[in-house]
């Protein structure tokens, strides 16, 4: 079989990878550029790649039998490039103050975006696995990037060892599934499983469980979350933001596509397994978050709690639930980036990251305190903000799939989460600041914060445009499952 490959379909990924190499070279040969401007340059590359991927809006074609280029891919390409660009901009000041070797730093962020794109685009398990490792490896290095910071070293070590351990499980699971179904293509696996499943061996189910474990690690679901708080606390803050948004979103993009296309026929077998994971994740994430003293650890546990809500969308897998899940993920990523923007800006000024050190922030930087308040309220799911709308749609989709009890549990833990977010807000507004001086205004940081906050409000008050785009995207994975076999191999002209 000789499938001719149309390399142009991967142009955004080539652009990102090429831009990463370009950034390293620029840093090497043009030292006069300055460390901050390097970050903006990297962000420019990510934005360009995101724009380039818009060429394939409403297109549905394939790269070989390796990657789908359709609305689902385009949606996530734009989303991931947006996250990458935001992180580059937010890193600019932090990196120039505190880290060595900025060229490689930005290059690795861009490569992580390439990996994330590949995970969303993958049409079969090998592509997905390689993309997943590209993303993970970039993140391992970035987590340990502060060379002389002991916590960063330690975080990198833990993340790396546990990541390698979990990817071994994931691979063994792929192996068993390949053995049981004879294919690594999602669609073909789905076809085999939707036929007579009585003669499928238990190895298949073991493989499925192992894959869920491996994926659970990538998205930090309990009980595979042990590395999360340490990795989040030790990593440089912009990288914490990157792990909590990009790595999670890419994990779910892959999770959703794999389960919608390949494992949907077995939904009765894994639904309650995932539902159980979801409950455990919500409980541990939200309850342990209450006793945290460090803002990064607090956000780490809160992000674990959010993963619980997202898993609910997988447990209730249907087209509505898939759209709701992606919408909640986008809302969560935007909100989370807004929260991290505030944490990064505060750290740039003071170098502090304990929650009690936020006291009196409202007097010293009112806009920052307001931004962080909005972001935290949105994470807790207060009305007006993105968190409420997206959670509402998600819980509704779950309730329609007879998982009302699960939606009830999720709503309960949303209330619990409000408590620990309010602790931070109380420190900022009611605490007495140690000094009264105002902080200087970081214009670039505030611009980014304003844009993200606007996104939070947009998704909270008028989510329809975003929802329509998301629905177009998730349509493609559900439709292609029904029509498989009828598609052309490649979109050769």
């Amino acid at each position, binding site marked *: 079989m000789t499938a001719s490959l149309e390399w142009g379909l991967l142009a955004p990924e080539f652009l990102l990878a090429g831009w990463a190499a370009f950034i390293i070279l620029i840093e090497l040969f043009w030292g006069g550029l300055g460390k901050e401007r390097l970050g903006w340059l990297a962000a420019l590359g990510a934005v360009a790649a995101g724009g380039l991927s818009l060429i394939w809006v409403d297109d549905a074609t394939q790269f070989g039998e390796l990657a789908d280029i359709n609305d689902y891919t385009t949606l996530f390409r734009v989303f991931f490039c947006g996250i990458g660009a935001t992180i580059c901009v937010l890193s600019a000041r932090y990196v120039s103050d505190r880290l060595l070797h900025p060229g490689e730093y930005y290059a690795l962020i861009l490569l992580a975006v390439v990996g994330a794109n590949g995970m969303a685009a993958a049409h079969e398990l*090998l592509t997905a696995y390689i993309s997943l490792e590209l993303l993970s490896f970039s993140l391992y290095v970035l987590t340990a990037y502060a060379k002389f910071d002991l916590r960063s070293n*330690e975080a990198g070590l833990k993340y790396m060892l546990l990541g390698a351990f979990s990817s071994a499980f994931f691979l063994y699971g792929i192996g068993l599934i390949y053995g049981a179904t004879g294919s690594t293509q999602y669609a073909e696996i789905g076809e085999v499983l939707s036929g007579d499943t009585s003669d499928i061996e238990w190895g298949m189910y073991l493989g499925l469980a192992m894959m869920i474990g491996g994926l659970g690690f990538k998205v930090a679901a309990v009980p595979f979350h042990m590395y999360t708080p340490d990795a989040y606390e030790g990593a440089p803050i912009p990288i914490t933001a990157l792990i909590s948004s990009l790595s999670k979103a890419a994990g779910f993009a892959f999770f959703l596509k794999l389960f919608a296309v390949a494992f949907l026929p077995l939904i009765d077998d894994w639904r309650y397994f995932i539902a159980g994971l979801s409950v455990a994740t919500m409980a541990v994430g939200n309850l342990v978050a209450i006793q945290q003293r460090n803002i990064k650890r607090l956000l780490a546990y809160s992000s674990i709690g959010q993963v619980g809500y997202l898993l609910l969308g997988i447990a209730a897998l249907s087209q509505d639930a898939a759209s709701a899940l992606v919408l909640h993920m986008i809302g969560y990523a935007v909100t989370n980036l807004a929260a991290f923007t505030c944490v990064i800006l505060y750290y740039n000024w003071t170098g502090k990251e304990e929650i009690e050190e936020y006291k009196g922030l409202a007097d010293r930087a009112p806009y920052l305190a307001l931004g962080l308040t909005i972001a935290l309220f949105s994470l807790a799911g207060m009305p007006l903000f993105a968190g409420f709308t997206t959670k509402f749609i998600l819980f509704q989709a779950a309730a329609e799939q007879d998982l009302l009890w699960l939606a009830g549990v999720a709503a309960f833990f949303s209330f619990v989460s409000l408590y620990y977010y309010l602790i931070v807000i109380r420190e900022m507004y009611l605490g007495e600041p140690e000094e009264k001086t105002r902080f200087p205004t970081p214009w670039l940081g505030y611009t980014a914060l304003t844009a993200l906050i606007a996104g939070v409000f947009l998704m909270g008050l008028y989510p329809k445009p975003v929802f329509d785009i998301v629905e177009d995207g998730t349509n493609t994975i559900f439709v292609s499952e029904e029509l498989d076999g009828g598609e052309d191999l490649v979109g050769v002209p």
Partner: protein
Amino acid sequence: MIPIDNFLVLSAILFSLGMYGVLARRNAVLILMSVELMLQAVVINFVAFAVYLNPETFTGIIFAIFVIVIAAAEVGLALAIILRLFRNRQISNVDEADLMKW
């Protein structure tokens, strides 16, 4: 021809040994070695399935090659991070890396 079961059992034993190593060892380098053992078990699995169940396509073999390559990259990366920790703190045991606790 040797039945496929033999290969699968070998692979399962290797995988379990690797898993035991990861959970029982304290030294980061030895944990890494155990992870490698697990990955090699995966490779045996893939090759066995490719040869016995699906001899006309190469998916399993190609997968095995990629797993080997990625495992090599993984070792390089992990050793660099372990070395960093050793230079800064003179430790290589994972239970001594305990600055952060929940």
